[in-house]
């Protein structure tokens, strides 16, 4: 893998990471204030549609961005009304918002543009285009000849849309707000102990609403980024579960801004890999080593624990082992070669597996095998004074 490929991989990772990062920070503000929000996905999707639609009709992408943020904030406020004002179940409210956005974007897109639930493609000047830094090469073909430093500068540093740089800027900004301002202190407090905030004479409701509104704004930017910077227009379900992956990244990041950046870049890398190397070849022997290794690890973990662990993890190990051996023997019979020779055969890793990698990793993250994460104490429960 030559240097330029690596640079490109990094470049693609960043591009894929930004919507995750924005959504992740959105979730961070909301959850730090004690409001769980699995509606990130829906807010992004709605924003993606509205900003594309408005950019197209108004011709100005900035107007589009504002409109996208607007709709996202509206949904955020609905979530707030459900979970703060009416003390409803935050998960259910989030799910509802996701469906609402998924359905309504298509219905309205069809109603307005009659193009099968998508917006028309945006003209060049109704999009966020890459900013070319002074002296940076813009064309892929020029970059390929350029010097490594130049490649890094032109491909990795320069050439992203302004939203990418905004997104990266949002990280230190969020950190500063959370840990260096009065608002941040109160926000963190209300997620841990709303009654303490309340008795300190601060309105829990107002604090939490401002948190979900910030969440809405960030989701709005994330959505607009997808439809007006990455893409030229809205297509149905274009957020493709980024909202949920952002939530996992948030847990992985232990609800901290800088960690969030790291987590999102990691997930971005997964997407980049899926896109760049959709057919990865692997020697059977390595597949065996990997799968059997996991199986062994799981079993050793399980045996020292309770029956349930042995059953579940043992079963899982068995499945993994079974897969490994089927892969092995299948190649052998397919190539019509000896079992041993088959070990050295290279086979294509199913693209479905590679596409599933981010999701798989999310599960591993949530399983806490990569560090235990303690969510804000009051997270997920409404603040109820009187029953």
């Amino acid at each position, binding site marked *: 893998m030559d240097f330029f490929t690596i640079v490109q991989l990094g470049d693609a990772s960043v591009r894929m990471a930004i919507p995750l990062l924005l959504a992740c920070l959105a979730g961070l503000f909301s959850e730090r204030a004690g409001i769980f929000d699995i509606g990130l996905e829906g807010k992004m999707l709605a924003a993606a549609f509205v900003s594309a639609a408005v950019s197209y009709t108004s011709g100005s992408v900035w107007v589009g961005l504002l409109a996208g943020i607007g709709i996202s904030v509206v949904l955020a406020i609905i979530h707030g009304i459900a979970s703060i004002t009416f003390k409803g179940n935050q998960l259910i409210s989030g799910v509802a918002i996701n469906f609402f956005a998924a359905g309504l974007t298509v219905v309205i897109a069809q109603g307005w543009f009659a193009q099968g639930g998508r917006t028309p493609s945006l003209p060049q000047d109704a999009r966020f285009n890459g900013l070319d830094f002074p002296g940076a090469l813009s064309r892929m073909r020029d970059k390929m000849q350029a010097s490594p430093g130049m490649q890094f500068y032109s491909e990795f540093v320069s050439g992203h849309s302004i939203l990418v740089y905004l997104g990266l800027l949002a990280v230190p900004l969020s950190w500063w707000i959370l840990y*260096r*301002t*009065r608002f941040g*202190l*109160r926000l963190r407090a209300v997620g841990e*102990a709303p009654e*303490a905030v309340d008795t*300190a*004479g601060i*309105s829990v409701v107002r604090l939490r609403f401002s948190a979900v509104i910030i969440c809405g704004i960030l989701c709005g930017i994330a959505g607009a980024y997808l439809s007006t910077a990455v893409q030229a227009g809205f297509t149905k379900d274009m957020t493709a579960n980024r909202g949920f992956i952002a939530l996992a990244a948030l847990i992985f990041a232990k609800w901290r801004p800088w960690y969030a950046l790291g987590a999102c870049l990691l997930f971005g890398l997964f997407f980049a890999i899926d896109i760049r190397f959709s057919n990865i070849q692997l020697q059977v022997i390595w597949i065996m080593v990997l799968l059997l290794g996991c199986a062994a690890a799981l079993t050793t973990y399980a045996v020292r624990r309770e029956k349930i662990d042995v059953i579940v993890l043992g079963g899982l190990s068995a499945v993994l082992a079974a897969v490994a051996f089927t892969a092995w023997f299948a190649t052998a019979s397919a190539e019509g070669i000896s079992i041993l020779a088959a070990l050295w055969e290279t086979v294509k890793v199913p693209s479905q597996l590679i596409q599933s990698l981010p999701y798989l990793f999310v599960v591993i993250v949530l399983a806490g095998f990569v560090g235990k994460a303690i969510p804000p104490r009051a997270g997920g429960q409404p603040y109820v004074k009187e029953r």
Partner: protein
Amino acid sequence: MSDISPAIELIGISKAFGPVQANKDISIRVMPGTIHGIIGENGAGKSTLMSILYGFYKADAGEIFIAGQKTQIPDSQAAIAAGIGMVFQHFKLVQNFSVLENVVLGAEDGALLRPSLAKARKQLKSLAKEYELHVDPDAIIEDLGVGMQQRVEILKALYRQADILILDEPTGVLTPPEADQLFRILGRLKAEGKTIILITHKLREIMDITDTVSVMRRGEMDSTVKTSETTPADLAERMVGRKVLLRVDKTPAKPKDVVLEVRDLNITDEKGVHRLKGVSFNVRAGEILGIAGVSGNGQSELLEVLGGYEKATGDILVNGVPLDLTGAHSDGQSRRAHGIAHVPEDRQNEGLIMDFSAWENTAFGYHHDPEYQRNALLMDNAAILRDAQGKMDRFDVRPANPLLSAKNFSGGNQQKIVVAREIERDPDLLLVGQPTRGVDIGAIEFIHQQIVALRDAGKAILLVSVELDEIMGLSDRIAVMFDGKIMGERLPENTNEKELGLLMAGVTDGESA
């Protein structure tokens, strides 16, 4: 004296929680520079009233006057502005914040944090000197003991320049020495002309430090008297509306052979803190062993181990049979199989399922019991219902309607349901935690009688309570726990509150002698 206007005057305060009338048309006046006590049964409405004064709850009706001025207190902000500070029964601290951050929270000077924190740090130093309220400003709350946490709460109030300070059952969580220290501080505050309202269940404290005392009963204000003009007995009578029999009448115990034997029990929680440190004791058939101690000294953990939902090391033998303390059989089911019944400390979160109806709750924990099964597959709900009706009648639960869900019964009646369920299993060993917390006197008497009756039926009973007089009244032997250890055993007839109080504070005989 009527020319100086009262520091606080509440007129006609009423507050209902859904169906519950917590406060009914309450009026009270508190003079400046005095310590005013409020007493009353659990659930009488004391905390509610004070929470209204502090703006935590909104009153349905009534007026508030601060220093003679009619004052609206829609929220705590307004209360703080009016110079009111409150230390709640359950502290309102952010567990993973530093002391400093907790003090500053809500009283910041500007949008940026740093200056506020610096200022608060200075302030705390001087307050600490002034009132000997020393706390490390950078300590994280969850690492502090309850006593320290209470100091932080007081500091919060003082930092906000409160000159009216409300303390809701401050000594419930304190050892006697800590309590004395607190009262010294209160004395000093009073001397400075601050007004203090003190809610407590302990008549001794009322008599010691208050100037006036108000008695609440069933959400209403019974009376307000000068402390100097009343006696504990008089107050107790006002509190519950009739003569209180201070002692439970019971015949001396006739202990038989050992039923429960606990040897060298140890618990270390996930934080690595030692909750139980080599606890050993035994309980004989036909006797009540009372475990006294300030809450949070390991009694709860002890009950949880015996009840089978906390793991521990050491040995527990019931009728000579060792119990599984760590493995698959260390759960409530197998404990019940060993003839252990358990009235848990927290009925609302453990003993009952509030959303279940009373009849479902009477099978709770015994749902595997053959008598409740119709066949291998199905439960016999009709049988459970019949059984529940019987229990509720025998224990005179009001209303005696098994179809009501548990949350609709009052504290005392909820407790009766639990006690009925556990006692009527006719267990060899009964574990009882805080049997009368949040229960009115009528229910208390009844429940105490049931416990004694079970003892007389030759059963072993382990009683855990933070109420010293309950321990003194019921127990045949008393063990005192402090910091996860048994400090010593006494016989009720030859000990007294003072001695027990010292043990509860960790002062062993040697030192006291």
